[in-house]
């Protein structure tokens, strides 16, 4: 007996510290309401969260690992994007 596949949802939770929602795993559920319920049961059993998002996995577009260098390597040489690239006279103090 082969069952109809249950849709997959990605789960994001925000913890108390006010940080952004963070990916924590996935659940299977027929619809968004049940996905939310399952995410709460599976990923927040110990007060880990004050807010949960569920997103259909199929709705996520991800970068291809093969394009990693092309996408992210160029920033490696752009050190002028960091504050430490710029010199400020010592006697000016902290800036």
């Amino acid at each position, binding site marked *: 007996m082969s069952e109809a596949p249950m849709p*997959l949802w990605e789960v994001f939770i925000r913890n108390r510290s006010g940080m952004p929602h963070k990916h924590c*795993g*996935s659940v299977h559920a*027929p*619809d968004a309401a049940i996905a939310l319920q399952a995410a709460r049961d*599976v990923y927040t059993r110990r007060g880990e969260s004050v807010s949960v998002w569920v997103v259909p996995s199929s709705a996520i577009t991800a970068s291809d*690992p093969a394009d990693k260098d092309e996408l992210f390597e160029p920033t490696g040489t752009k050190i002028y994007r960091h504050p430490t690239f710029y010199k400020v006279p010592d006697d000016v103090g902290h800036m």
Partner: protein
Amino acid sequence: MYTQGLNVTDTGKPAAEDPAKLARFQVKVDAEDKIEPNDWMPEAYRRTLVRQISQHAHSEIIGMQPEGNWITRAPSLRRKAGLLAKVQDEAGHGLYLYAAAETLGISREDMVEQLIAGKAKYSSIFNYPTLSWADIGAIGWLVDGAAIMNQIPLCRCSFGPYARAMIRICKEESFHQRQGYEIMVTLSTGTPQQKAMAQDALNRWWWPSLMMFGPSDKESLHTADTMQWKIKRFSNDDLRQKFIDATVPQGHHLGLTFPDPELKRDETTGHWHTGEIDWSEFKRVLAGDGPCNRQRMKAKTEAHEDGAWVREAALAHARKRAERAAAARMAAE
């Protein structure tokens, strides 16, 4: 451990891998970079992980049965709440692990079907019966203790989703072991009958717990590959020894004895040495002929089949609501 059935020769020979890709993969693993689901990986690495993670997940799910047996008969509300939370955790751990395995391209439905068809293994430990309340103490203390010993190094496994699932699981499991040991302490310091129950549970669970670490290194087939790929960090025997060294003093603290006349401490190394493990029992239980194999599979199959209409109805309901919402949008336009 929860993945003892790995000790089989992989029959489908994977196609020869591109040596350049293979070399890049190994450099990444050696540099302790994580391998993520969409990264290139050797076919044998993928297969090993699917087998290991799914066996681990099945073990968590089947593992609910022996303990679930005592939820309604827990001796107090405090004990019942603790046990219920622990069994709920096992369900959660099974789900984290199925999700981690799914990132490798196998569906949860397929994994569950493999389990029910008897094609997938789960840990031998869950084929032993829980005959008394003291068994709940012994399981938490010994079985979860052994699991933690095995799972801590898996938090550093080279495959990202598995490592992340293990971090969550390890955080939650330390409560499991402590609740078990607390039960053992209570029984061991109780009436003579209670102490006898604790001793009886230790007698029955000690050897099966040692078997959880899998075959001895002399017989282990895949250790070299899985070590090189940093799926595994320590050998079965090394982890077993760590567990023995940690656990024997805890048992003595309870005032209990271990069912092993050869157990003794090597004064020079500080290690505890046990007698020989009965590997024929291990093989028998893993192959399906333990005290409760049939009962466990029957309960799992029934639960899965009895729940099928709920899953079908939930999907049908979701479909109906989506169609109605679409029709309402059309009408409004």
